[in-house]
């Protein structure tokens, strides 16, 4: 039963869809190969653009000659920065609420200063993609190299080369937190443990690469952009402002999106260049990044070095955490969500689950001549959780306390909310105790420990890794809005009774495969008590849906769902009011049930919504003169009680390490997660499984390998190791439901819990397996070589 919003609102008695594993209706077209992605769309006079990307990490163009290339068959033109300078203005990727953050202006095409291998500099437009690539090979371009900043640990040295001399140094952002009596606590603590954690830079590798089809209509001065994107309204605002077009004449349409994970929530220079070229050439221009350019142009993530220490008492009470996070981003802060948020979240979230009061943290975000870095699924959580849970495990083993017991002693207890964490994060209500005891039973923790001990006798080394985590979801304007970015923190839904008696829901949160359209249908169907088959959901079109933020930071269900709930509620009340006018009854006596209007007491049938719709649309003459039925309702919702609604979960990973080859076999993985009300258990579990495997990619396999000249050495699917089916474990999932009181729906986010905790759990499991050898590995990805070096079987070649 949905908690009633206000006394006079009627919500259907029993729930048929919310809470049920409803299969996704829009999956059927995908199963038949009838999805429509951007590359599937063909428009008349459509041309293709291909970008010449800087082959070096830092330099300056000295000569450019395209005279031969332009003579090639099918070539429409070759363009550089100056050709679109007066069409699209540059941007700066900073946020006001990250004080002192700086980043230089960035242009759609680099005006000569080459800042990373992969930066778009020239555009070749031709009739076909093949012809454009043929011409690309005949551009005659020469450049001078400049000293490269490719090692983040030396980027702030006084003698380090400067990427942007005008900025004075390579520092993008710094921030510190210093709460409680940190120095005193560490000085007097019984036990202090210290460790450094290295996280390899890696990227999302979405199946569908970034795709844009920009169609500027010169006659109407309107721009339609088919975009593979997560935030259509954000891009509408950016294109409108930077191309000087009225917002109403910019339309962004996101049909099927082939995976995004945060990679497609940003704006990219080649997006702006493609749109600008469409305006310049007055014809549709299609840009489909191929896989090779994706590795050097999609945003990267997770490039961090974190030094951490923890202070605890002899009897195992954690007193203080301290961290120093150094993160090397790209030459520009990404626009508009910036390259500072990942590091900022590491500071906010480290130590999240625990009761300590003393916390000091320093963040330095430094520029590098490597692809720009920004939000990718989990954002700062995989770093913060791995640092926290790694050092907590080190403390537990130093104190000789079982790591599960140590966590049970120190996590915030479920009865102690609301409260503020040591880093200042405001926590509404979490369930660490419930999650820890649930996963203990689910994974048969004691049984695993017995098996681990027994197998050590046969020199088989297994490890059990635990990772408790907090996760921010349902963000309010605190994330971006207050910093001046026009990124909507609210979402809107319009729910309409159609003439045929069906319900159409238009909502501003989009679908990228995670199933948000399905849960919106579930919510609308239950709220209006309609068969779900009669509910149709439309998203991803700025000209159709209300204005809203889109998909990011695990907010789809929590924010979008609540907007759908409130709009459906409003429509429900309007329909009852309409039925009252028709049947001369008072609202308390009627209810909606299964697409009909019924008497509350005796459930007598009064009318079917289909008939009411026809009457309203076609026979208004039969209605009381003074009554005008309203058959659609729009509601907007934003979460304003907390900066973010935090939720939590816990992972356990069970691995076997071959101590001769350093190979790790993932045996099993468990997750207990609390995302508040679970609207669709199947879809939530699948979100967690997909995110866990992405986390496993980061901890074991994925890294962008750069040499000192800032050149990528493994930019193909053969050498950049994305996780594949054979090596992945089965993942068992359970839920605790601590509903948020910030909304009637009570749902919190679930999309990033998997990638937040999996790296920590797998790292801890590997180090648990290596414990008999007193070896630890804290540099991700944990490759066989790093394990062999830790075991002393091989000298450290290069970490």
């Amino acid at each position, binding site marked *: 039963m949905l908690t009633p919003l206000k006394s006079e609102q009627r919500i259907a008695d029993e729930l048929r869809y919310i809470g049920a594993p409803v299969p996704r209706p829009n999956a059927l077209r995908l199963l038949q190969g009838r999805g429509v992605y951007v590359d599937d769309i063909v428009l008349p006079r459509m041309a293709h653009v291909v970008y010449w990307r800087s*082959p*070096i*990490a830092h330099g300056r163009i000295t000569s450019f*000659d395209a*005279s*031969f290339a332009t003579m090639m*068959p099918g070539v429409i033109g070759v363009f550089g920065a100056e050709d679109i300078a007066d069409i699209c203005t540059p941007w700066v990727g900073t946020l006001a609420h990250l004080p002192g953050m700086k980043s230089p202006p960035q242009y759609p095409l680099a005006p000569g200063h080459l800042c990373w*291998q992969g930066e778009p500099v020239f555009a070749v437009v031709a009739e076909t993609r093949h012809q454009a690539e*043929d011409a*690309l*090979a*005949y*551009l*005659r*371009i*020469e450049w001078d190299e400049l000293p490269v900043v490719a090692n983040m640990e030396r980027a702030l040295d006084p003698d380090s080369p400067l990427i942007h001399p005008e900025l004075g140094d390579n520092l993008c952002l710094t921030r510190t937190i210093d709460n409680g009596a940190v120095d005193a606590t560490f000085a007097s603590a019984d036990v202090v443990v210290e460790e450094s954690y290295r996280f390899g830079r890696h990227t999302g590798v979405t199946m569908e690469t970034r795709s844009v089809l920009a169609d500027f209509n010169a006659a109407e001065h309107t721009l339609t952009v088919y975009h593979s994107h997560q935030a259509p309204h954000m891009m509408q605002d950016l294109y409108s402002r930077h191309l000087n077009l009225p917002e109403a004449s910019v339309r962004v349409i996101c049909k099927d999106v082939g995976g995004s994970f945060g990679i497609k929530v940003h704006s990219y220079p080649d997006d702006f260049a493609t749109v600008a070229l469409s305006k310049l050439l007055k014809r549709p221009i299609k840009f489909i990044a191929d896989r*090779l350019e994706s*590795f*050097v142009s999609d945003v990267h993530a997770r490039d961090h070095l974190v030094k951490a220490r923890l202070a605890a008492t002899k009897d195992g009470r954690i007193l203080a955490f301290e961290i120093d996070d150094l993160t090397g981003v790209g030459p520009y802060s990404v626009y508009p969500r910036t390259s500072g948020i990942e590091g900022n979240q590491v500071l906010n979230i480290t130590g999240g689950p625990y009761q300590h009061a003393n916390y000091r943290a320093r963040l330095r975000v430094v520029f590098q001549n490597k692809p720009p870095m920004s939000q990718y699924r989990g954002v700062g959580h995989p770093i913060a959780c791995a640092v926290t849970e790694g050092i907590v495990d080190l403390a537990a083993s130093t104190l000789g306390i079982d790591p599960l017991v140590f966590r049970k002693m120190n996590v915030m207890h479920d009865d102690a909310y609301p409260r503020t964490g040591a880093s200042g994060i405001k926590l509404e209500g979490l369930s660490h105790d419930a999650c820890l005891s649930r996963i203990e039973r689910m994974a048969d923790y004691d049984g695993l420990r017995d098996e681990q001990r027994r197998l050590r006798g046969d020199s088989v080394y297994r490890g059990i890794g635990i990772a408790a985590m907090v996760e921010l979801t349902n963000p309010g304007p605190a994330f971006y809005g207050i910093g001046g970015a026009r990124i909507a923190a609210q979402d809107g839904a319009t729910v309409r009774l159609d003439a045929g008696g069906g319900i159409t829901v238009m909502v501003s949160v989009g679908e990228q495969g995670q199933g948000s359209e399905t849960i919106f249908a579930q919510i609308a169907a239950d709220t209006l008590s309609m068969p779900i088959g009669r509910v149709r959901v439309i998203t991803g079109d700025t000209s159709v849906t209300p204005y809203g933020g889109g998909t990011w930071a695990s907010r789809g269900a929590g924010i979008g769902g609540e907007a759908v709930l409130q709009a459906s509620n409003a429509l429900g009340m309007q329909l009852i009011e309409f039925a009252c006018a028709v049947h001369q009854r008072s609202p308390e006596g009627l209810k909606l049930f299964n697409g009909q209007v019924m008497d509350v007491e005796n459930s007598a049938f009064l009318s079917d919504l289909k008939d009411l719709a026809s009457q309203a649309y076609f026979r208004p003459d039969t209605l009381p003169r003074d009554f005008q039925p309203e058959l659609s309702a729009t509601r907007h919702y934003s979460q304003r009680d907390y900066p973010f609604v935090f939720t939590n979960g816990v992972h356990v990973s069970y691995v076997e390490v071959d101590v001769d080859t350093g190979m790790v076999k993932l045996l099993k993985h468990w997750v207990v997660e609390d995302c508040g009300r679970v609207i669709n258990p199947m879809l939530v579990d699948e979100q967690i499984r997909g995110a866990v495997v992405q986390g496993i990619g980061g901890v074991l396999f994925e890294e962008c*390998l750069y*040499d000192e*000249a800032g*050149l*990528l*050495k*493994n*930019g*193909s699917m*053969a*050498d950049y190791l994305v996780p594949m089916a054979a090596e992945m474990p089965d993942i068992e999932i359970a839920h605790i439901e601590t509903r948020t009181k910030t909304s009637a729906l009570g749902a919190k986010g679930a999309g990033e819990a998997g990638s937040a905790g999996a790296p920590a759990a797998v790292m801890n499991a590997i180090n648990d397996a290596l414990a008999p050898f007193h070896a630890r590995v804290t540099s991700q990805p944990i490759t066989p070589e790093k394990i062999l070096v830790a075991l002393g079987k091989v000298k450290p070649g290069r970490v």
Partner: protein
Amino acid sequence: MELSGQQIVAAPRQAVWDALNDPRALYECIPGCEDIEKISAEETRVRVAVKLGPVRARFTGKMLMSDVTLAERCKLTFEGAGGAAGFAKGSSRVELSDEGSATKLTYSVEASVGGKLGQIGGRLIDSSAKKMADEFFGSLDRYLTGSPLPRESGREPAPTTKSADIADLPRSAPEKPFVRDTSVIRGVWSGGLMAELYRVGWFTLGVAVTLLLKHSF
């Protein structure tokens, strides 16, 4: 990745050192060298066609000799642009020591390849750089001891040092690309061979055209 190798050259140290500075010797010994032209004592402009399995990449750039201690040690650095393939930088610290009447060459190899080839070829950059270095120093021995060099078929005879003068190449390329008169080329626009001739852009085009004009007329 730091790699190293050794090669005994049955010739006195001075002769080996002279060969390292003689464009004719370099043309014979650099694997896949298609053209060479000495610009100064330290700098030699060179065009190298690299064959690696099915991969064909033509690098046009220059070879620098630095950190020189006469007839004892130096550093050879090659930097070349490979058109769409990207660009390559290879360096080798070479030390010459007497080994009886012969000379022992010990050398390091370091390679860094940018652009697309680097992205994709990462797996084999080091081993192929090592292979090219081994071949170069191996050829040096055969060149100095007069035994025949493994001449790949179809490679034009070495141009005289001065005749293939790249330096005074016309800055702006000729209006229409010239056509070689052999039957293999079927049309000015035929992607295949034209790609081969012009693939690295005008600079090479200039080189290719200049060379061909000199040879075929």
